[in-house]
Structure formats: structure tokens, C-alpha cells
């Protein structure tokens, strides 16, 4: 890289660029990135965020994203620039809720302190002073912490609808105004404590819900993130210039360097290389290309530089086409109504009617408007869905935490709800039932050959080399000392060991099976690769069936290998399905009244993942598939899929119990409130107890995710 001459002491201010680094996993990675990156000329400092899998680099503006990515790649980390951050609004939302929760908590504790004194018998001037102090704390707290509810209620009212936030807002505002009136006129009862406490508990529920959304989604990059952002276009005079992906036009001649992602579809005109197409297909083996081959945006050039003529650009690429299909398929899911919203649609009108009836009833009975309004407010506050607001998020946060510890990240609460409703599992083959990464069979190699193979393989990022290195490391092989190792794109690795030429080469007969040849001096040995089934595939499928989800295979692979795996697992199967066919199969299942759970990894599964009632992708899946799926599981076992369904069902049982409890509590409390028996003290105690019971019940889920049966 011909780094521009940099003048660090110069006047040019540093700029900060953020990159997503999915491979960052441990303290070693953080240390390596922060220490080594800062040594690169032009980079002033790097700061890694492990939770978000991001690295913020402050650097000289002369360095572009490509140079930063190259510096990270030199350290062994793949990265993608964070262009537009789809999670930023979520993050801001989460922060606002947490701040509001802190403010409400502060207000609640201080007002409660004053209220307890009033309840224990403070009278006259002391009571007046305490009420005034409470008002001084409550008014700003309600105005600040209540905003999320007021805004949502206002939106609902503007569209002539009602939601859970409407009774909450009315209750809180009425209670505050009424208490203010009481305070000014020197009355005996003020409701400031109830109003602020209600806000606190409800905000706790909201904050939990937001926490769950942001936490588990952090590691998942944005769709199209890996599609090349720009390309080197070769002009008529032979000079190259960088052109942004959106400005490319069909017919342009483009030079693709090794390691670069393709920015558009095209046809190779010069050069031979291997392309990593895993973004599109999820297949692990790189695809060899030669002049005449059609190549697609999103593929990464793993070999020598290529020249290609563009055929489809920007919105017309195969990748964009699939993205559109996913978008359309995902529309149906956005109409899914969360269980809490379904409950509130039934609940909110009842609460309004009850409060109004209480007011009108007491007024008719001659209680005076002041007493009637006090009772109506008591009804609104006591029925306000405090426990209900916590019923769903508390259970879902505990359940997703339990699943996270077992290697499954659920993106949000609605995913858990939909997972629990599935009645059929559709599985992809490559990368889902199988591991998707080639495994080397090194049984035939002697220890010396193994150590040489490891020394060669560990220097390369080629999937076969990685598979070989992983197999050797699992056997505890120590790498031999091999000198001047060179990697020739497309043909293999070569080096020198004790004066002998050693190499990993392409086998001579280019057959279907994946294999490589290990050459030591003049002796050659073939190392075969296989893509084995996940070790617990059969057990996981049995566990899914036990949960009432019979499985079937839907694969884009050829019919013969699909049939072989289907026979081994005893499942019905359909092979040779392209993305459209997969989508059609899912739509057909839904039309039959099924609620399919889709498990798949490739981008070819993307539309099907988006269309399914719920979907899960392995952590090795393409970015787009992880984006489309509701949950992502990590590791070699398939059992987390069955576990996810089991925990989701347990979670919904707890949610239903929580709802049952809330309704029973309200059924008990409402008559008391209607008859005017509820004092602020009773309301405060009842509210806290019901919330605590719901949280305690939800915590039972933490132990409800038993380990996979051995």
C-alpha cells in the first residue's frame, strides 16, 4: 500500500470512523486491535467496543475506509464500515427510557419518604409543607419521565385509536392535577406518590423491553454491508479511478483486487481467481472463476486480481433483488400484533368505561364533583396496568437471558411470542443441518505430515486451509517450522521445510469432492474434506418433534445429496429449490394454515427466513440471513433451535400466568376503588406487591431452560 505521506503533527484534525468487527471475541482481540492499530501510520487511536462488536478509529482524514479495513485485515479481523446505523434510533430510545427511569426512581423515593410521614399522621402545617415539597418534586418528574407515555398516547388519539398509554396518561395527569388542587386548598390526600410510582414501574417494563431489543442485536451487521461500496473503474486510457457503487454503469470495465468485495454483477474478462460467495449462497467452498464466468455483487475475491465487465449495477444486482424479496416477505411479519397490545386493546376501553361510570355514578348519588373525581382517579390508578406492563417484558427478558447463556440470541420479544406459536419446522441443509464448513480428514497423515500441514494451512484464510488447521489443532498438532510460505491465489500454498519443498496444492483430478494435496518433497498425499452433519442433528429434530414441530428439509442443493441426508434423518425433503421456490414453499405452508419455523443460513434462504412465522439462523450464516432471522444460534450444536422453542413456550406460559394474576388482582381491587375504599396508601402497597409478584414469577424462567439432553 502506498500510504500517502502523513504529517501527524499537522493542522489536519482527526476524524473518527466506526467499523463493525464481528470476529472480536475476547480480551486478546481488544488488546491486539487497540495496541497494533495505533501503530499504523495515520491512525491516532482505536477503541474497541466488545458488546457492539465495533471499533472506533480516530485517524488522519487522508486514510479512507478501505485503508482502515486493510489495516484490520492485516491483524486478522474482517470488518465492515458502519455507514448508516439502523440501531442508532433504538439506542437513543433506550437511553431516553433509562434516563426517564432514573428520574422517576429518584422522584418516587423522595416523594414516598414524605408520604410515609403524612400517612403516619403528620397534620396541619407539616402536612401542607410535605404536600408542597412533593408537588415540587413530582411536577418536573412527571413532566420528564411521563413523556414516552404522553407522546405515545397522543399519537394513538390523533389516529382515533386507544392503547395502553391512554389510560396511563389520563390517570397520571388527572392524579397530578387533582393532587395539586388538594395541595393548594390544603386537603388531606395527595396522589403524587401513586402517580410517580406508576410511572416508575411502567418505565421499568419499557426499559426492559428496549434493553432486550438492543442487547442481542448488536453483533449483527446491516444488510448489504459487505457489498462493495466502490470499485476501481479502468478508463479507456488504462488508468483506474474509484467510483462509488451507485455511480457504476453497465459496460464499465472494473479491476477487482484480491480481498476486495464486488460492488456489482458482471462477467469476468481477464484473470482467474476464486470467489468467496458465502454472502450469497452460504456455501463455504470458494468458487473458481475464469474469463466468461458470471460473478455477483457481494462476493469477495480470494485470489488474484480480476478484470470484469459490469452487467448489472446498484438496484439490479442479484443481491439487491434478494434484498427486495426479503423486504416484501418481511412485510407480513410487521402486521403481527404483540400479545401485550392485544391485551390492551381489550383492556383500555374497559378501564375508561369503569372510571367514567364511577365518576358519573358517584356524582348522581350526590357525592359532589370533588369526591367523585377522587374516586374516578383511584379507579384509573388502581386498574392501570402496572403489573400488566411488566408481565410480558419481565418474562421475555429472563427467557432471552436464559437462552443467551445457551448460545441463542433472540432479537426481540415478538420473536419469542412467534416462536412459541410455530407448528412446523423447515430446515435448510448446508450450514444448518450440516456444519457448513469443510472438515479435513487427517486420520491418514502421520504426525510429521500433520505438523507441516498445520504450519502451511494456518497462514491462509482459504476455507479449506481453515478447515485443515482447525482439524489439526483439535488433534493437538504443533506446527512445524516452515519457511518462506507463499500463497498463490487459486493454486495453493508453498514453503520450505528442512530444505525440502512442501506445499498444499489443488488435487490433479478436479472432481466433485473437496480435497487438497499435501506435497512433502516428492511424496503426495490427498487430504479429503467433508461437510458433516451437526453432531446432535437427529436428537434436535426429535426434540423439535416432541415440542409439536415436525421437521422437513428444504434445500437449494442438488436432489441426490439432499435425499441422502433426508433418508439418514428420516425426514421429508425437497431439493433444488432456488430463493423464489423456497419463498413459494413457505407461502404455501402458510396458506395451509401452518405457522412454519424456518432455519437456514444462506442468502438464498433470506426471503424464506423473512416470510416464515419465525426464523432462526446459525451464527455462521450470511449477514443478510442473520438480519432476517428472529434468532441466531452459535456453536456446532443444533439443539439450541429445539431449546428456543421449548423456552419460548415456557415463556408464554409464564406470560399468561402473569396476565391471569394481573386480571385477578384488578378484579379484586376495582370494586374497592369503585366504592371509594382505596386510600393512596392502599393503592401504593397494592401496586408494588402486584409488580413484585409478576417479577418473581418471571424469574422462575431462569431455571426453566434445562441443558440439552445428553
Amino acid at each position: 500500500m502506498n500510504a500517502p505521506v502523513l504529517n501527524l503533527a499537522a493542522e489536519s484534525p482527526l476524524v473518527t470512523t466506526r467499523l463493525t468487527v464481528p470476529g472480536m471475541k475476547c480480551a486478546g482481540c481488544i488488546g491486539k486491535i487497540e495496541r497494533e492499530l495505533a501503530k499504523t501510520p495515520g491512525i491516532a487511536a482505536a477503541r474497541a467496543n466488545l458488546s457492539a462488536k465495533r471499533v472506533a478509529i480516530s485517524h488522519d482524514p487522508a486514510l479512507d475506509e478501505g485503508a482502515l479495513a486493510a489495516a484490520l485485515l492485516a491483524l486478522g479481523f474482517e470488518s465492515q464500515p458502519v455507514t448508516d446505523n439502523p440501531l442508532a434510533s433504538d439506542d437513543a430510545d433506550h437511553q431516553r427510557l433509562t434516563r426517564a427511569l432514573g428520574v422517576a426512581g429518584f422522584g418516587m423515593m423522595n416523594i414516598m419518604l414524605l408520604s410515609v410521614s403524612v400517612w403516619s399522621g403528620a397534620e396541619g402545617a407539616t402536612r401542607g409543607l410535605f404536600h408542597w415539597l412533593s408537588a415540587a418534586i413530582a411536577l418536573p418528574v412527571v413532566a420528564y419521565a411521563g413523556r414516552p407515555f404522553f407522546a405515545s398516547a397522543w399519537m394513538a388519539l390523533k389516529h382515533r385509536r386507544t392503547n395502553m398509554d391512554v389510560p396511563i396518561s389520563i390517570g397520571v395527569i388527572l392524579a397530578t392535577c387533582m393532587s395539586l388542587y388538594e395541595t393548594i386548598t390544603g386537603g388531606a390526600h395527595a396522589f403524587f406518590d401513586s402517580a410517580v410510582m406508576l410511572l416508575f414501574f411502567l418505565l421499568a417494563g419499557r426499559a426492559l423491553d428496549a434493553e432486550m431489543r438492543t442487547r442481542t442485536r448488536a453483533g449483527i451487521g446491516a444488510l448489504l454491508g459487505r457489498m462493495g461500496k466502490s470499485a476501481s473503474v479502468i478508463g479507456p486510457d488504462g488508468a483506474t479511478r474509484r467510483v462509488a457503487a451507485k455511480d457504476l454503469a453497465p459496460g464499465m470495465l472494473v479491476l477487482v483486487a484480491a480481498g476486495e468485495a464486488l460492488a456489482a454483477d458482471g462477467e469476468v474478462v481477464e484473470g482467474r481467481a476464486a470467489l468467496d460467495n458465502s454472502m450469497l449462497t452460504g456455501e463455504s467452498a470458494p468458487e473458481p472463476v475464469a474469463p466468461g464466468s458470471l460473478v455477483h455483487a457481494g462476493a469477495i475475491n480470494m485470489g488474484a486480481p480480476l478484470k470484469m465487465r459490469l452487467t448489472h449495477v446498484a438496484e439490479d444486482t442479484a443481491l439487491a433483488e434478494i434484498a427486495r424479496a426479503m423486504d416484501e416477505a418481511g412485510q407480513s411479519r410487521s402486521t403481527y400484533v404483540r400479545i401485550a397490545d392485544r391485551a390492551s386493546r381489550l383492556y383500555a376501553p374497559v378501564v375508561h368505561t369503569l372510571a367514567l361510570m364511577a365518576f358519573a355514578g358517584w356524582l348522581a348519588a350526590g357525592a359532589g364533583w370533588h369526591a367523585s373525581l377522587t374516586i374516578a382517579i383511584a379507579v384509573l390508578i388502581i386498574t392501570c396496568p402496572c403489573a400488566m406492563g411488566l408481565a410480558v417484558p419481565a418474562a421475555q427478558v429472563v427467557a432471552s437471558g436464559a437462552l443467551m447463556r445457551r448460545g441463542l440470541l433472540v432479537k426481540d420479544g415478538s420473536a419469542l411470542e412467534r416462536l412459541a406459536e410455530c407448528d412446523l419446522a423447515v430446515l435448510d441443509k448446508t450450514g444448518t443441518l450440516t456444519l457448513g464448513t469443510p472438515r479435513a480428514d487427517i486420520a491418514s497423515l502421520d504426525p510429521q505430515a500433520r505438523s507441516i500441514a498445520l504450519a502451511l494451512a494456518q497462514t491462509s484464510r482459504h476455507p479449506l486451509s481453515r478447515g485443515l488447521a482447525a482439524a489439526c489443532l483439535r488433534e493437538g498438532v504443533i506446527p512445524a517450522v516452515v519457511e518462506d510460505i507463499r500463497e498463490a491465489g487459486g493454486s495453493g500454498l508453498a514453503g520450505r521445510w528442512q530444505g525440502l519443498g512442501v506445499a498444499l496444492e489443488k488435487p490433479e483430478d478436479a472432481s466433485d469432492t473437496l480435497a487438497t494435496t499435501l506435497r512433502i518433497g516428492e511424496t503426495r498425499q490427498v487430504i479429503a474434506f467433508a461437510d458433516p452433519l451437526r453432531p446432535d442433528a437427529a436428537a434436535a429434530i426429535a426434540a423439535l418433534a416432541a415440542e409439536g414441530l415436525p421437521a422437513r428439509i428444504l434445500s437449494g442443493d442438488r436432489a441426490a445429496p439432499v435425499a441422502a441426508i433426508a433418508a439418514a434423518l428420516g425426514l421429508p425433503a425437497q431439493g433444488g429449490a432456488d430463493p423464489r421456490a423456497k419463498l413459494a414453499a413457505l407461502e404455501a405452508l402458510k396458506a395451509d394454515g401452518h405457522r412454519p419455523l424456518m432455519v437456514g443460513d444462506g442468502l438464498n434462504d433470506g426471503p424464506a427466513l423473512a416470510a416464515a412465522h419465525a426464523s432462526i439462523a446459525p451464527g455462521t450464516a450470511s449477514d443478510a440471513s442473520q438480519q432476517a432471522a428472529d434468532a441466531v444460534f452459535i456453536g456446532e450444536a443444533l439443539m439450541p433451535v429445539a431449546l428456543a422453542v421449548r423456552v419460548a413456550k415456557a415463556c408464554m406460559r409464564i406470560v399468561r400466568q402473569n396476565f391471569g394474576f394481573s386480571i385477578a388482582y384488578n378484579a379484586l381491587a376495582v370494586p374497592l376503588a369503585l366504592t371509594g375504599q382505596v386510600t393512596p396508601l392502599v393503592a401504593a402497597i397494592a401496586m408494588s406487591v402486584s409488580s413484585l409478584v409478576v417479577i418473581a414469577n418471571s424469574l422462575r424462567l431462569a431455571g426453566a431452560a434445562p441443558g440439552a439432553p445428553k
Partner: protein
Amino acid sequence: MTGLVLLIPIALGMGLLGLVAFLWSMRAGQYDDMEGAAHRILIDEAGPGEDAP
């Protein structure tokens, strides 16, 4: 009653202090990377040992 003049501002002040500390820690990004903070303690500052990723 005179005790209240002293005690109530103290109680409120301590509550406010806690709130300000919480808001400050949030703004300072102390909750941004809980996982990373747990791992950072393991980084050997001057260590020459380069862990493999």
C-alpha cells in the same frame, strides 16, 4: 420541626447526588460496553505475548 429544615434538604440533596451520578455515568458511556469492560481487566498492558484472535 426545626430539624426538618436541615434534614429534608439533606435527604433531597443526597437523592439528587445519586441521580446526577447515574446520569453522568450514563452520559460518560460507562454502560456502553459492559462485556468489554469485563474482558479488559485481562489485557496484559505491557505483555509481549500476542494472543491469537
